[in-house]
């Protein structure tokens, strides 16, 4: 049994190499779509999540407790529930069904933004709040404006902010429930690495499923490695 598994892994690894080196068009399309969807979702989550997280970490507002609980709850949202929620929103009879986004990459991006946003905002908030409060006073004493003050705090919290981005990227590039529900795993249109793995596993093509899994892991490894490097470079 163990030998079978090792054989499968070895074959999967070999096939992954062949697919990559052979420049398999279908594979490249799947990889490109996976990265495009997850990167766009991550960028949108960062665009709104980092400022919100910084604001919550730096100030005290009336609904702070409620927002924090919502964010922490959001950090643990099951992707399949997010998928169901987005599906209901975008389905033809849903409130924004007229947009016609269901079973398109846009719907997948929407779902992944919902998954990534609480992670980015929540972890940024924690990082910003953990920066020495005296730093803001010091920055202000040196002539910082409010915006410069906030920027100084974010710079100090950068290790945590990058960790937030890494966590969010890891969550969305590897999730399958939401993209499967709202994307539909349509070949050449909404099929991404995770949904392709599910499909190939179901059809018994374990070697291809393993190959895709190895590619997904390699991509996550390279991208997280790059983010970690960025974290270290900025931590001079």
């Amino acid at each position: 049994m163990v030998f079978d598994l090792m054989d499968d892994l070895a074959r999967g690894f070999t096939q992954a190499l062949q697919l990559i080196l052979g420049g398999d068009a279908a594979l490249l399309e799947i990889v490109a779509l996976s990265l495009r969807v997850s990167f766009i979702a991550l960028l949108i989550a960062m665009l709104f999540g980092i400022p919100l997280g910084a604001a919550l970490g730096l100030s005290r507002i009336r609904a702070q407790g409620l927002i924090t609980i919502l964010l922490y709850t959001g950090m643990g949202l099951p992707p399949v529930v997010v998928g169901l929620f987005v599906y209901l929103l975008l389905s033809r009879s849903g409130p924004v069904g007229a947009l016609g986004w269901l079973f398109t990459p846009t719907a997948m991006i929407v779902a992944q933004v919902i998954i990534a946003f609480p992670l980015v905002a929540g972890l940024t908030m924690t990082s910003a709040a953990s920066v020495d409060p005296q730093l803001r006073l010091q920055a202000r004493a040196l002539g910082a404006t409010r915006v410069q003050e906030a920027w100084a705090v974010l710079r100090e919290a950068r290790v945590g902010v990058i960790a937030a981005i890494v966590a969010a990227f890891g969550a969305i590039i590897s999730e399958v429930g939401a993209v499967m529900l709202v994307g539909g795993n349509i070949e050449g249109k909404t099929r991404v690495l995770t949904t392709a793995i599910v499909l190939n596993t179901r059809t018994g093509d374990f070697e291809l499923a393993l190959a895709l899994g190895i590619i997904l892991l390699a991509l996550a490894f390279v991208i997280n490695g790059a983010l970690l490097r960025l974290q270290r470079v900025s931590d001079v």
Partner: protein
Amino acid sequence: MARYCASNACLMCEALFQLRGVRKEYGARAVLQIDALEIFAGEILALVGPSGAGKSTLLRLLNFLETPTSGQLVYRQTPFENISLELRREITTVFQRPVLLNTSLRANVAYGLQLRGARHEARIDEMLARVGLATMARASARKLSGGEMQRVALARALVIEPRVLLLDEPTANLDPYNVALIEEIVRAQHHERGTTIVLVTHNLFQAKRLAQRVGLMLNGQLIEIADAPAFFDAPQDARTAAFVRGEMVY
């Protein structure tokens, strides 16, 4: 409002700061009540007093980091309500506990200039040399000792060439070498640039060494303020006399 002051840089000094009936409260608790105080251009004023006397609160008000609950605080004829960013940037504070950015020494010293969109590489080098840290310019600020951190904080404050330098117990907990070095830098800055300096210290000897005027604060109030020799040798208030003698006063 002109006054003779002992600074070499300025013989007829204008009152830079004028405080009238300035009161600061946190909730229902009043922590500062200054009936009248003037701080003159080019002077070194030391504020002494026990912990909790309101000295640091006063410095925060002078740097416009906080606003008075009531009263008049005027800087260069401008009431605190109308202080512009430009005027605020003439003043800076070195705190007792220096907080440095998690980056190199050089970037820390450059920070105040960076906030102003200014680049003065030579001035940064000069400041690093002045505080004796030129060879460590590229080192991480996290690897510094307490004395070195305070010297970086001082260089960071001086590089922006402030008109007013507020020092909040800058040498507390430092070894004699660093105390002497920091005092020498402060003295040189005052002598060369005529910078107005307000020094908060527990160290009466330091006040005596550096200041031209000294004020005693107790329970948020300014008990007595006088030229340094008069303050130490002929105090008018019994509490000042007791404090100068090293007795506990409350």
